[in-house]
């Protein structure tokens, strides 16, 4: 027994830098949970539990008591309270007990379930110390440096067991928490925490709390080396010097141990201040009832531990991704801007807003947030104190089966995939400096998306099968294309325009329920605005060609569709713009004739289409009338004007002819 004690002491010292003798100073009032009191009320013939007595007796007795206890104690008023709690604890205790091998109650060690750590610790406190609470309470006010880590168990003196059960209810009624002993000498793994008068008599104003500890912790200490308890960060697996954890030496190091960790100077200053002030770092608020001096448990969490938590929180804030804390960033930018303005206006009083500077702590290795074990179902989440957040990879890794499903499903998958790529491109764009390599990378990515869209010529029979057109039939696909257009090279963009115009009837028909084609108008308008005359003619020819399956021209159909008519007007406007401008057009053979023919065709169709079917365009270019004036007689122009007149804009357009 003694040797094991020594082993434990040595271990504790090594781990926590504990002075074994320091534990002698710890005070403890002796708490007991209410469960015990009723139990021990009855077997008064067993006043003392002597160490070494067969624990099975008591165990059996406890189990029996636990069961019958609630009924028996209902009548007694004071005991009703206990019984309810007691029953809870009894259940709790019973489960544990049943889970444990009763034979282990003897001197042979077994592993301690972690949740019993605290209790054992408490028990040991009890065992060691007759109450000298008052002395210890004030100890908290001392410098934290002096406070070592307490915890090496003293199991030589189970004084508590000497207490008679008769005194228990008395104690309880006095509303002081009491803890019973465990049956054999427990050797728990002591956690690095403040000990001592944690269990001192509660001096709270009328705060009743019988101790919460389960009495049923017949845990036997294992040889400490076999235990892997981590009460701080996983310092064993990581370089412990990297991280400043409470489980390192008992001395509070103000000088941060490692060259890798740095505290913000303000933080450092505050730390030293706190040291000097000596632990009474409460905010100023009138709390006469519960001043820190009276609270014996104040300071359970040491400065070191608090700093550790703060440090972990700071590490969590470190991130390369600017979007991780968007609101914080924007808030601070605004604040700084406001202060800069104020500074400009109100003189040179430069108050810097207190800025959060996270300490530089080098993260160990690369952190794999998700560990994929081959053959397992799903993901194993790995989170350390460095990155406790990212437990699961939210990004979908599984490759989408494109072969499966209907056309539409495949189209939808493609859209999603391409959209993600597009978002990446835009992200790149946003963050991009003018570095040429990045530009190239971006164009590469854009090119990739364009290729994936698989835009190619297809006949009208194949329209339903064509991949690009399928993409365009979906709203999101249109959005994708619309967002992609600005990034594309002119030829690519024009190709898209050509394809859309070529298949305009099909697209318009498919868009009937959704009406999302207008999404494309803006970017296409931009494309049109940059087109050459020849290309323009090409596109217009798509609209004026006759269709095999319909008597109507695409042009006519377009007039009845908002997007169609807008696109048409846009094209015409561009043509007019080019013609009326001074720039050389470099037209191909027959371009002008085609242009004139087109204008006449448009005019004819426009006049023939009943006004009721004519749709208002998204935008009515102002130079259309002048275009018509150029080629048509006044009467026709008037007629057309009346037709097109659906917005005040056309009414205001001057009539040059």
């Amino acid at each position, binding site marked *: 027994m003694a040797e094991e004690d020594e082993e434990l002491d040595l271990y504790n010292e090594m781990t926590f830098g504990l002075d074994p003798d320091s534990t002698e100073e710890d005070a403890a009032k002796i708490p007991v*949970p209410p469960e015990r009191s009723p139990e021990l009320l009855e077997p008064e013939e067993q006043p003392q539990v002597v160490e070494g007595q067969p624990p099975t007796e008591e165990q059996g007795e406890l189990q029996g008591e636990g069961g019958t206890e609630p009924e028996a104690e209902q009548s007694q008023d004071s005991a*009703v*309270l206990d019984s*309810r*709690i007691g029953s809870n604890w009894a259940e709790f205790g019973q489960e544990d007990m049943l889970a444990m091998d009763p034979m282990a109650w003897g001197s042979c060690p077994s592993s301690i379930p972690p949740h019993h750590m*605290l209790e054992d610790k408490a028990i040991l406190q009890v065992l060691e110390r007759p109450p000298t609470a008052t002395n210890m309470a004030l100890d908290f006010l001392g410098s934290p440096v002096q406070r070592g880590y307490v915890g090496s168990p003293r199991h030589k003196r189970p004084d508590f067991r000497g207490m008679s059960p008769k005194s228990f209810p008395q104690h309880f009624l006095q509303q002081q*928490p009491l803890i019973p002993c465990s049956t054999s000498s427990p050797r728990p793994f002591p956690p690095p*925490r403040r000990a001592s008068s944690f269990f001192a008599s*509660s001096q*709270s104003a009328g*705060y*009743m*709390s*019988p*101790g*919460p*500890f389960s009495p049923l912790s017949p845990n036997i200490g294992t040889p400490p080396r076999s235990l892997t308890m981590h009460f701080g960060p996983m310092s064993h697996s990581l370089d412990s010097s990297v991280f400043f954890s409470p489980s390192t030496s008992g001395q509070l190091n103000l000088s941060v141990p490692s060259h890798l960790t740095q505290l*913000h100077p*303000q*933080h450092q200053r*505050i730390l030293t*201040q*706190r040291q000097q002030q000596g632990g009474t*770092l*409460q*905010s100023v608020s*009138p*709390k*006469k*009832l*519960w001043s*820190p001096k009276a*609270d014996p*448990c*104040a*300071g*359970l*969490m040491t400065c070191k*531990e*608090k700093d550790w*938590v*703060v440090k*972990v*929180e*700071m590490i*969590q*804030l470190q991130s390369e991704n600017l979007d991780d804390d968007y609101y*914080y960033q924007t*808030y*601070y930018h605004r604040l700084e801007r406001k202060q800069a303005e104020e500074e400009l206006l109100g003189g040179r009083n430069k108050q810097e*807003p*207190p*800025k*959060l500077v996270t300490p530089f702590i080098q993260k160990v290795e690369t952190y794999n947030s998700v560990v994929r074990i081959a053959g397992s179902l799903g993901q194993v989440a790995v989170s350390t*104190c460095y990155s*406790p957040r990212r437990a699961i990879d939210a990004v979908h890794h599984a490759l989408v089966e494109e072969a499966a499903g209907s056309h539409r499903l495949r189209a939808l998958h493609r859209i999603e995939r391409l959209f993600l790529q597009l978002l990446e491109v835009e992200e790149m764009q946003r963050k991009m400096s003018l570095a040429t390599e990045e530009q190239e990378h971006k164009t590469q990515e854009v090119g990739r998306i364009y290729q994936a869209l698989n835009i190619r010529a297809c006949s009208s029979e194949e329209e339903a099968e064509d991949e690009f057109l399928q993409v365009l039939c979906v709203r999101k696909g249109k959005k994708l294309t619309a967002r992609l257009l600005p990034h594309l090279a002119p030829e690519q963009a024009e190709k898209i325009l050509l394809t859309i115009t070529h298949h305009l009837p099909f697209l318009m028909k498919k868009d009937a329920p959704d009406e999302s084609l207008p999404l494309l108008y803006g970017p296409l308008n931009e494309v049109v605005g940059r087109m050459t005359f020849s290309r323009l003619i090409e596109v217009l020819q798509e609209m004026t060609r006759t269709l095999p399956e319909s008597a109507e021209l695409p042009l006519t159909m377009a007039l009845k569709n908002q997007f169609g008519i807008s696109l048409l007007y846009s094209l015409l406007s561009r043509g007019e713009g080019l013609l009326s401008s001074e720039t050389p057009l470099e037209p191909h053979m027959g371009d002008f004739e085609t242009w004139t023919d087109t204008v006449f065709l448009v005019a004819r169709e426009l006049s023939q289409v009943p006004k009721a079917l004519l749709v208002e365009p998204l935008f009515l270019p102002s130079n259309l009338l002048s275009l018509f004036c150029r080629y048509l007689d006044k009467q026709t122009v008037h007629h057309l004007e009346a037709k097109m007149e659906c917005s005040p804009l056309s009414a205001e357009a001057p009539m040059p002819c």
Partner: protein
Amino acid sequence: MNYMPGTASLIQDIDKKHLVLLRDGRTLIGFLRSIDQFANLVLHQTVERIHVGKKYGDIPRGIFVVRGENVVLLGEIDLEKESDTLLQQVSIEEILEEQRVELQAKQESEKLKVQALKERGLVVPRADTLDEY
């Protein structure tokens, strides 16, 4: 003294009396003794307070270690204002009885509701078959 400006930390709340609301609906009142980076809490001299109507009852629970993810919210209790409340404290048995009655009434009304909906062909999925989020 907050040396992490712009952030919220429980560090300042240590050793103060708090009211903690848990996800299962329990209300705990205790002194916050210790925290960690997951906002796991150690509550000392904890009391579970059950509210039914204008009455409440306290069940002393001792020390609680609460896993952070189960906390809905917590707030400091002003010890001076703690006693001016319109609520009436009753004994534990009484409040538990009240709670049981309230729960029963709720269950019955719920049953009637579900029945009425079922008659109209609307099936409301039960909460336990739904994903929590």
